[in-house]
């Protein structure tokens, strides 16, 4: 499997021979300014099926922003993100791409219980039957009936991870997923990521700490250097 990461001016630099059918996620010539600072300029990357992109960099380097650009939440000044060769947002809206996004905010309603929150997302992904199983797997079985506002920060992070697991997504976009997690939680996250990649999924993870993806191939992208 060919893996390449280019900052090159040629946006197709990563499309080596034979990689054409395996590359699923690609960004070409992404440029974004925030105020007077340039977060990234002419940034390109390409990611084959079953691999992960690890976005590294110090605080404020633009890891979250890049993740939001990939998710289509923030528009870059120039450049484009594609999924399987077509525009990312179009693929998302046509249902050909299933995306799990986990940002800074957990995306859970504080007034609803953990189970109610997760059931909502499981229904949207068409697998409501898996809620209990995933709750147990993420170690939230005992607190499933608690309102999310009563959960600890680590438990909220686990619940957000449970939502990702329930999404049946091809692509995971995770922003600092290890934050607030204990050792067991971190191990679980790494296992889940490894399993996702082994199943032919793709992941983009923004992290300032190291993360073990198991045997899955990882591309590293350093921002702010």
């Amino acid at each position, binding site marked *: 499997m060919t893996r390449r990461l280019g900052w090159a001016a040629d946006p197709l630099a990563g499309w080596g021979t034979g990689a054409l059918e395996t590359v699923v996620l690609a960004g070409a010539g992404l440029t974004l300014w925030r105020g007077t600072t340039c977060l990234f300029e002419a940034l390109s990357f390409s990611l084959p099926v079953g691999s992960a992109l690890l976005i590294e960099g110090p605080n404020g380097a633009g890891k979250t922003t890049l993740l939001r650009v990939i998710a289509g939440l923030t528009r870059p000044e120039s450049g484009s993100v594609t999924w399987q060769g077509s525009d990312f947002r179009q693929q998302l809206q046509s249902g050909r791409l299933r995306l*799990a996004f986990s940002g800074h905010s957990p*995306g859970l309603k504080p007034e609803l219980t953990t189970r109610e929150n997760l059931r909502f997302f499981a229904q*949207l992904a068409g697998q409501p039957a*898996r809620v209990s199983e995933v709750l147990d797997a993420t170690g939230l079985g005992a607190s499933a009936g608690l309102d999310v506002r009563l959960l600890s920060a680590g438990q909220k992070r686990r619940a957000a991870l449970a939502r990702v697991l329930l999404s049946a*997504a091809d692509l995971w976009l995770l922003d600092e997923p290890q934050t607030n997690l204990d050792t067991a939680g971190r191990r*679980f996250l790494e296992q889940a990521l490894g399993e996702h990649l082994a199943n032919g999924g793709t992941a983009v993870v923004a992290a300032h700490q190291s993360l073990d993806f198991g045997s899955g191939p990882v591309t590293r992208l350093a921002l702010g250097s």
Partner: protein
Amino acid sequence: MALNVATGTSSRDAAAEPALGLLALFWVILARDLRVGLRRWTDASNSALFFILVVTLFPLALSPRAEQLRMIAPGVLWIAALLATLLSLQLLFRSDLEDGTLEQLLTLPYPLGWMLLAKTLAHWIITGMPVVLMAPILAITYQLPATALSVLTLSLLLGTPTLSLLGSIGAALTAGLRGAGVLLVFIVAPLMLPVLILGARATDLALAGEDPTGPLYLLGALLVLAVSLAPVVAAGAIRVSAD
């Protein structure tokens, strides 16, 4: 911790087919927002309490003569309903933006406008419907005759959803701004004026013993227009707010 959670990527072959039909999607979002709204009932009851307060203050401040009360009733009730709607609008998308729910909705393979329509309907059921239900009871204190009461209720039933839908555009535009309450009012209030005029006019006509169907039909037409257009505009605005 045992990990045996197949991450579900095996379902990729069926990925072109969304998991939920549009009606099921509408229902799932409506049910969730209603549940959140009921858990947060202190917020939800604000606009209903405000409506009661405004409507009951007028007879105290003005003369309690029956004919004068009857004359001002349509205007007072409609203005109170409009202000109650404006009061509730800030809550429409604010918490969704803060807790990350909007990011989740934006990254789903479902039409955003449709989801916002479900959210706006839930918002109207929680904040607007109590106003519609209370209006005829409060209107009795204004000595309104039965025919005018039913026209008033019908006009509110047709008009307040339109107000919520128009308000959803302003709420979507200002969701990301801090302290945008007044700005929101200035954006949406002018759009709401036709609804206010038609609603009060219909009740007025019924009170005078004339045929109120003209303004009622127009209110219905505005509602249809708002249902079909407002969610699309709000969806565009919410993308900007979430950026």
